[in-house]
């Protein structure tokens, strides 16, 4: 059942992003930033966790899940450390993703020549 919801919710988030891009003629970066901030705010309101429980990867994989992960990391570190947590928490959960993107990007650039 989670598979169905992952497909439907994940697809719906992407379709919504596409609609906003087309309607307001926005470049993708605006929509990606908007989704990330939305995910961060929903995380602060405690609404993203239920969505994750419900839609699984459908909420985890879209970029709003990235905003959620940043905020969730900050909140848990704030709970643990106080002020310091505001500055240490952002990469608590996302560090793995950012680091792997940099490493894989570097490796891909090394093995492949520039295209065209």
């Amino acid at each position, binding site marked *: 059942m989670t598979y169905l919801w992952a*497909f439907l919710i994940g697809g719906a988030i992407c379709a919504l992003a596409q609609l906003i891009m087309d309607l307001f003629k926005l470049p993708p*970066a605006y929509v990606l930033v908007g989704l990330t901030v939305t995910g961060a705010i929903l995380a602060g309101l405690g609404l993203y966790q239920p969505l994750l429980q419900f839609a699984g990867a459908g909420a985890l*994989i*879209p970029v709003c899940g990235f905003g959620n992960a940043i905020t969730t990391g900050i909140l848990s570190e704030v709970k643990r450390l*106080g002020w310091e947590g505001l500055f240490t928490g952002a990469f608590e959960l*996302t560090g793995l993703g950012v680091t792997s993107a940099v490493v*894989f990007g570097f490796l891909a650039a090394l093995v492949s020549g520039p295209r065209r």
Partner: protein
Amino acid sequence: MDPKEAAKQKEYRDLVKAMEPRPSFLRNMLLAFLVGGAICLLGQFVFDFFKGLERTEAEASAITLAAMIFLGAIATGLGVYDELGELGGAGAAVPITGFSNSIVSAAMEFKREGLILGMGCKMFTIAGPVLVYGILSGFLVGLVKGVLLGYFR
């Protein structure tokens, strides 16, 4: 303006209108839905695979994201992801694989401008705003929530 000229201009305008690609909102949305949904479905399979191996759900989520980033990097290296992006639009850009694609393709493209000033500077050209505003909004949410719940003493 003489009527002949005006008629000619109108004819031209009609022609331009007919030739212009019509924005097909529904078609774009459907494609974004299918491509994005399929990537999330794949992510769910990956997540369920790692849930059996990792101790907590948070760890399984983190590994799933890294695995999807890896898959996105491979697909980008093979040139497959760019075609997926042409087809799916936001459906390919919004999932974390699109984040990976933006970093990997920038790294590949700007390598020829040098490893430091090319690749180093421009790797995050597209992914940068997501990081900057993600961190800023997370910081603000943490600040507000920390003050409200009295975590700062």
